[in-house]
């Protein structure tokens, strides 16, 4: 059987601000025997809350251009960003169901000699791991179970919402992201505001960072009320930026100081697959660069070579 491969859609935040996620994803997919193919010349997805709010047809056309890169090679796309997933998945879905939009998009794409065909699927990493690779296969690779690490989750919004359209998970009682994270051996810690938005989306972070941080702060306080956690895991780099860098920004805007290590699910898996944090650069998260400190290795139960 030919090796399963995905086109790897990087987006903006992963490759340009949190490259440790890109690096970790490459390690994890390689371990799982799944190919990641470069999507040469892929652009911004473009950001769904931003471009989708400005001009739907332009948003769909730029997203469709990205989709055509994968269509040409005939492999599905996978991405590790809730926002990129939202743009690519939604645009793909909407153009498959709305002929008027599809025609408008293709008229625009004709300008650059491209055509949206609707021949491929888009998967979030979470989705690819759960339904295309399977929990059993992931468990086979856990060589360093993160025993005793208390793990809070931030699933974020756009990979499972809107639920009626995406049909991925029950967004009110989701279990898929948790199931994947629990394979790492870390202990799941529930908190009341687990499912609220990080605050960054919908062009809000761009417009009013303080307002966006209020959402984040609410989540942190809710987590502390529940007894706190050693790490927060998310499937999205924009949420990761908001929760990670957000701690530095919250300190500036509010009189509050938090110290949470925030990991992308791929970083969590890379660690529990036995990779060392410096193999993918866990310590390069912007929080640590700004605060000139390091992940709390002791809480993570990992001895880092620094």
């Amino acid at each position, binding site marked *: 059987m030919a090796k399963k491969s995905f086109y790897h859609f*990087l*987006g*903006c*935040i992963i*490759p*340009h*601000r949190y*490259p*440790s996620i*890109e*690096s970790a994803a490459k390690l994890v997919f390689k371990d799982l025997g799944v190919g990641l193919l470069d*999507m*040469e*010349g*892929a*652009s*911004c997805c*473009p*950001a*769904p*809350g*931003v*471009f989708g*709010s*400005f*001009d*739907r*047809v*332009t948003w769909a*056309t*730029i997203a469709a*251009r990205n989709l055509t890169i994968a269509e040409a090679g005939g492999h599905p796309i996978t991405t590790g960003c809730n926002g990129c997933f939202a743009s690519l998945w939604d645009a793909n879905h909407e153009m498959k169901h709305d002929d008027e939009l599809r025609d408008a998009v293709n008229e*625009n*794409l004709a*300008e*650059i000699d491209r055509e949206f065909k609707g021949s491929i699927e888009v998967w979030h990493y979470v989705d690819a791991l759960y339904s295309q690779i399977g929990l059993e296969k992931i468990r086979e690779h856990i060589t360093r179970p993160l025993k005793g690490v208390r793990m809070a989750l931030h699933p974020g*919004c*756009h990979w499972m*919402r*809107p*639920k009626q359209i995406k049909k991925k998970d029950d*967004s*009110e009682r989701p279990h898929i992201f948790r199931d994947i994270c629990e394979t790492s051996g870390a202990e799941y810690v529930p908190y009341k505001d687990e*499912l*609220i*938005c990080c*605050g960054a*989306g*919908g*062009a*809000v972070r*761009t*417009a*009013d960072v303080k307002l966006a941080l*209020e*959402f984040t702060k*609410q989540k942190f306080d809710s987590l502390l009320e529940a007894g706190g956690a050693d790490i927060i895991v998310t499937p999205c780099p924009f949420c990761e930026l908001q929760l990670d860098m957000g701690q530095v920004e919250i300190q500036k805007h509010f009189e509050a100081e938090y110290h949470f290590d925030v990991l992308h699910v791929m970083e969590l898996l890379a660690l529990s697959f036995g990779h060392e944090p410096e*193999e*993918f*650069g866990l310590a390069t998260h912007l929080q640590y660069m700004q605060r000139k400190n390091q992940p709390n290795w002791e809480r993570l139960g990992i001895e880092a070579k620094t």
Partner: protein
Amino acid sequence: MYFSMNSTTSLLSVLILTSTEEKSAIIIDTPDDSFVQMIKKTGGPNIQNCYQCGTCSGSCPAGARTNYLVRGIIRKALLGLKEQCISSPELWYCTTCYTCTDRCPQDVMPTDVIKAIRNVAVAEGYMLVPHQKTALKVLEAGHAVPLDSENWQNLREKVGLERVPPNASRYPEAIEEIRKIAKKTGFDKLIEEKEEKEE
């Protein structure tokens, strides 16, 4: 009195928020349907399903901390109060978390309605400067968050990756294609116009 108040402060705030002495009431004789039609065409097809139950606002994390009221905006839109909707700064407080969409009993898809109203707002020249700058970045670099400094390339190298990823940051022809798309859809003009207005 139809209701009792616990404190004078809250009574006062109710008065300020509702008093026609502060702000004259909007006269709604015959609702103007054209705005609703515009919204339906731009991605909010179910807006007319709304029966004003308030589930959306009750679920809304943006509404919990600001004066953003998604139910209110939908009602205003249904009454044809276009200018009220598109000029309100709160329109941009929605993080598009889709909680309201997942809970609305009438399948209104409020998030998409808000995005559609934002589309109309932008088409009529209401665009915040930071948003316009983000849009410009995509036309300039192919990415809303570009690889715009040596530091970011160093960061990539540090984690064991090639300095420039194989996306539009590496391929100028990709950026050229994005520009052509923006020119074709008129999106480049939307951003330019705003620039002139700001000056």
